[in-house]
């Protein structure tokens, strides 16, 4: 049996340990904020935090999250930085179709937790794994800078 916490809630799982965390969240926990985009850790749409580190849940098997603590977009607003990122995203009107945005927000939170005032270069390093086919990139960049100002 795999034990983990999701957004602070303890959970147990007894199914196929090879199932990626993504499908557990989406199909079993009905937490559909975390998106499926590529299934190969290439696009970032499925980004969650595992023990505080951003990770692509589409390639993270359940067996590897035994004992882990997961946080997802659904709980982002409970976090000070998360809330600031979401607010900045709205202020900058960043999303277009929105499908990549849960992942973008989760990656941005991870970045700002580590570096509260990131440079453009830092943004490139931390955010380039998140594809946005709508190419909302200029606004995403602005929104990260805005959130950085807010959390000062």
């Amino acid at each position, binding site marked *: 049996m795999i034990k983990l916490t999701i957004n602070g809630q303890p959970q147990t799982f007894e199914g*196929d340990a090879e199932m990626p965390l993504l499908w557990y969240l989406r199909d079993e926990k009905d937490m559909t904020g975390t998106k499926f985009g590529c299934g190969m850790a290439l696009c970032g749409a499925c980004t969650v935090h595992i023990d505080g580190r951003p990770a692509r849940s589409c390639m993270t098997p359940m067996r590897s999250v035994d004992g882990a603590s997961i946080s997802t977009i659904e709980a982002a607003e409970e976090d000070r930085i998360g809330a600031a990122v979401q607010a900045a995203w709205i202020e900058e009107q960043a999303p*277009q179709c929105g*499908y990549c945005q*849960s992942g973008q927000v989760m990656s941005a939170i991870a970045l700002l937790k580590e570096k509260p005032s990131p440079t453009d270069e830092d943004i490139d390093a931390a955010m380039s794994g998140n594809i*946005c086919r709508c*190419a909302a*990139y*200029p606004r995403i960049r602005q929104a990260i800078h805005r959130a950085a100002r807010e959390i000062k």
Partner: protein
Amino acid sequence: MSIKHSLTESSEGFRLNRRQFLGGLGALTLAVGFGGRIAVAAEGSLQAGEFVPNAFIRIDKDGFVTVISSYLEMGQGTFTGLATLAAEELDITPEQLKVVGSPADAEKYMNPVLAAGGFKVQGTGGSTAMAGAWTTMRKAAASARAMLLQAAANTWKVPVTELQVKDGIVSHTSGKQGSYGEFIDSASALPLPADDQISLKDKSTYTRVGKADGMMRVDIPDKVNGKAIFTQDIKLPGMLVAVIAHPPRKFAKVASVDKTAAMKIPGVEAVLAIPGDNIIQGGVAVLAKNTWIAKKGRDALTITWDESTGSREDSEALFTEYKKLAATRGLEVGNKGQQVEEAPDGGKVIEAVFELPYLAHSPMEPMNALVEITDDGAHLWNGEQWHTADQAAMAKELGLAPEKVTVTQLYAGGSFGRRACPMSDYIIEATRIAKIAKQNGVTGPVKLVWMREEDVGGLFYRPMTVHNNRIVLNADGSVASWRWRVVGQSFFPTPEDQVDSGLMEGTHELPYAIDNMLVEQHLYQGDIPVSWLRSVGHTHTALVGEVLIDEIAAFSGKDPYQYRRALLAEHPRFLKVLDLVAEKANWNSPLPQGKNGERRARGIAIRESFGTVVAQVAEVTVRADNTYKVDKVYCAVDCGQVINPVNIASQVEGGVGFGMSFLRQQITLKGGVVQQTNFNNYPALRINEAPAVETFMVDSSNPPTGIGEPGVPPTVPAVLNAISAITGKFIRRMPLGAHVQA
């Protein structure tokens, strides 16, 4: 879509028709609950006490307004545009409204602009939503307001002219106040105002339309907290997820399938052979209780494909074939003046053959659709872009009358045209799977989910093309004549002796003053289906046209901006946009030079598409290692009346980024097998390559024109022109890749 639309100042073309003014809204309202679960409630009858003056507006007893969108929200801000128009005419705040997707109904929700172009459907495409809604939605809201005011006037027994509305509160000079909600009952009893009695606000009194803070995107809050519901997110009781194995060689048939291993996986409910046809590939579908199990089951199948069937298309061979065709006369699409055979003294002949690849849409949300077959009909849940066409295709697949098929519209995680497939391929596939499942005793709704591999390999690509151009230049650099031949498949099924307006758009209608111009078309009837991709024919014709204009200018050493100005002298609208972008980009002052052997230049391009004129200047750096970076793109736009400037800027930024992906993308086939599978070999622009984009809008009072697509076409030529300015080499084959030729 390739709809040539001309919008006039007159609103006559967009009268609300009778059915649009009705009660009896057989609507399905979508309510999104916490945790991303979705509840769908069929509303055969209206909520008690709602005021429904027409098919686009509903107002409840609290004065809360529901705006019904007949268009899909796939990222273009359509819902917000509609909300802006409704809020403007109703004088309500963003907090007092929500936008929901409409059901499929061709009569009520026909897209007026598409219909004028010959596509009598309810659909979203061709950047037509705002153009279509500009009159419809404003009138719908204004008539609601007029009725509510009349009702208030009747209640308070005061002249209607003495009433005012602000933030959804009706007030009278006497101090009487009340919300819209108080008057909905009496408003419902009033006669509908005649179409010509509806008066719309004057532009000078706008408080929301055209204002940067007029209306924030209504869909964004739910898109930053994970609550927005896409087709991928829908889960219904008893629903099964279907993951399909498509034939590697496109349209090959299944010879045999060993499903033993798949059926052993707990949770796999059925393995079904799905016959293909010339629209859907068919294959073997695995139905399971969740997506992972279905995928695992699919991967566990051992399928033998009938090697004697299926496509043998090979893109490299096709280019050779196309180039041969391109050397021969084609169907005349446009012919002005006379072609000049030989270059005049001091002149030159430019022979330029361009090769442009197939492109996949690859929206962020891979294709999917949820189908439920009921006893007497069927229901579709989808990020629905092509409502009534998909409805008809689905009905046909099931042998039902179209009205027996109902549609719930959801958000789409991008589409770029993929969800408006003219053949409704993925809808038919989902329906066929559900149908065959039912025949095999597997009941319940079925959600078809394409993995990214099925999405990239899922055909209906932007067609590959060869463009053969012969341009004769006079000694002074002016164009003596230009012959432009396009070889490709038609975007929309078209017989060989007819012009495909999609394939050819932006060729013969070039605004440039070129007296002698001949445009020809060769249609190739291949077995790899194609369809429109965001900005359609302009994705290739803008590239060819605008790169050639630079090459022409270069012959006589003219500045490409000034050369374009001269050719556009008769077109003030174009000139305004071109001058605006040149001014903002500081075209006339030199670009700061790069360091470490970097070389920099600007490139310019302009294109009208979907009624909108966009000019762009790209600043590009070529590094010492011959890689390049697009540093910044300046854009100028004339899209008529601006409804939501922030959204326009956002769409143009997105258009630039979408176009820039073309620099590295291609779909190739070998022996009928698509070579690309996922973002590792079909790359998309990432943030570290994304340029800064600045957008400037021309002030205009013309009716709004499109904005979802027009940002795309000028980007690639502007970038290529900048690169050519640096390297002195003209680029003729896409994708360019990550490096330029030294």
